[in-house]
């Protein structure tokens, strides 16, 4: 990963971009008749402030970057943001699969697939994974649906 200072430059630029996207959309919203107030006022302000915050973060990042280049400490010792891309994508896929499966096949199947899949990916034995996932989804369904009357997605077979 790149050092924090450079990551900050990226973050700042992203914030400026976000502001630049929000601002024209906000200005296109109508105002109250003969008034500056209305639906467009606050989003427009927020858009401007996004750009301001982005500029400040970018400048701070560039300054820190220059200080680093000026030779205070070597490249390797700079703190770097860690992105656990793998764990992020695991969670993304697991929840996405649940969103697709659960409405069609019910909570028990969706939940089982989600938990068993996550457990397997995170290095558990498949026997443990299947057992934990099965017991957990059944208990959760029993507690929420039967005991607490909280509705959960239902499959064609009623669970």
């Amino acid at each position, binding site marked *: 990963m790149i050092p*924090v200072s450079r*990551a*900050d430059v990226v*973050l700042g630029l992203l*914030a400026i971009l*976000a502001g630049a996207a*929000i601002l024209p*959309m*906000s200005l296109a*919203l*109508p105002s*109250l008749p003969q*008034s*500056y*107030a*209305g*639906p467009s006022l*606050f*989003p427009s302000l*927020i858009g401007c*402030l*996004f750009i301001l*915050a982005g500029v*400040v*973060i970018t400048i*701070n990042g560039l300054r820190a970057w220059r200080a680093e280049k000026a030779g205070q400490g070597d490249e390797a010792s700079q703190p770097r*943001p*860690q*992105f*656990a891309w793998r*764990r*992020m994508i695991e*969670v*993304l896929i*697991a*929840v*996405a699969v*649940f*969103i697709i499966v*659960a*409405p069609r096949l019910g909570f028990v199947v969706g*939940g089982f697939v*989600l*938990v068993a899949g*996550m*457990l397997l990916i*995170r*290095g*558990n034995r498949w026997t443990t994974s299947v057992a*934990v996932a099965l017991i*957990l*989804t059944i208990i*959760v369904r029993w507690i*929420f649906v039967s005991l*607490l*009357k*909280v*509705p*959960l*997605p239902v499959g064609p077979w009623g669970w």
Partner: protein
Amino acid sequence: MWENLVGAVALLAQPQVILIALISAVFGMFMGAVPGLTATMGMALLVPFTFFMDQVSVLVAVISMSGMAIFAGDIPGTLVRIPGTPSSAAYVDDAFILTQQGKAARALGLNVVGSALGGLFGALGLMLAAPALARFASRFTSFEYFWLAVLGLSATVAVSQGSVAKNGLSLLIGLFLATIGIDITLGIPRFTFGNVNLLSGISFIPAMVGLFGVSEVIRVTMEEFQGKEAPQIRFGLVEMIRNALDGLRARVRLFIQSGLTGVLVGALPGAGADIAAWVSYGFGKNTAKEPEKFGKGSEEAIISGTSANNAALAGTWIPALVFGIPGDSITAILLGVLMMKGIRPGPGIFENQGNLVYAIYLAFILANLLLIPLGWVATRTGLLMLRVPKRILMPCILLFCIVGAYAINNSMFDVGVMLVMGILGYMLQQLQVPTAPIVLGLILGPLMEQNFMMSVIKTQGSLAMFFTRPISAVLALLCLAAWLYPLYRKRRQARAAAAA
């Protein structure tokens, strides 16, 4: 007052309420003692269980869970130098050094009793400050509420640690998300991109579950606790209380100072138990008898932190109850749940729902008294929880997050909101952008906009009333102070650096 007290006792003295208090305390103990799980995450996981609870049970569950979690974070901190929650981080070195010196029993006793007494002090602060503030606030109109929202937003950025620009960015993300949906003045959809699910706005609770639950499922590494053989400590309950009181008696002034700091920091929007512990630790160091011992096994350091973070919990309820402005992320989620339960916080609830308010006071007192025996049990079992395998635990937590996010509106779209917010929250955290301001933005954004629009419609566009009404003017000045405070802090730091 007396009839409210009697009413409150009747509300609390029900078997299922007591049972819920006990179960929540055990749950809080678990959330606090397992590093990587926090009190806020506990609140997020509590959400689906609150659907079936009545109003009092919800309040009791949250009070009992959060107090226990903030205390239990001390246990792994003291015994193996891994703070269980961020709130225990400030004084973890002091507590652990005492353990190394063979004084673990003493340190844990201070943790338990200091937390409980700190919590009781906080309860006292809540009981005194909230009704007084509510009487004052009953005179507020849309002009004052507008400034109050601005003040809350400003304070969030001003008191938080780290970069002001990054805190501001986080706040702006929350404010922007809050504008999504039907606008309140003309009923025009904003930023919905034609999606029907977005018309009613981003659902608050799924967003919270994502920010504080899912992001942690991603963040917590799978490295299991490799049993550094932790010391086995056994001590009696009475012995523990006697020892701790002995340690506290010589430092009553420090304790009161820490409790006050906790309540005040807690009452500031956006700053909760973790910041309270750091601020109080700093104050303690400035005023202690032996400041040079801070960080090197000082009992004064432990008292400063451990009582302040528990006192802060009650402090966070002050703005939450009086104005509907959460003092920390726990009360933010709680406010979302209360809305669902038909409780609208505001100055009015002190008059209209007096029984409920007194039940909150009593629940704080009971939960903190309960903390002493339960905490004593936890000091014996807390280390077992370090051994819970996280590679099994975290996927299970993800399932509970989904249940909570889905069940609130029976909507898979909300599960998607949870997922997006989880990933966003994780990435922001890794870029050292704090996520708590997002919550404040989400809650205070609509409050600010609504009251502004109401005000300018009343005055036909004139802004003068925002500055000419006396209370309004004072609040405006406070906002100005909050904006200037970071500049002042920066200059002072620069001067301190130059002097050193």
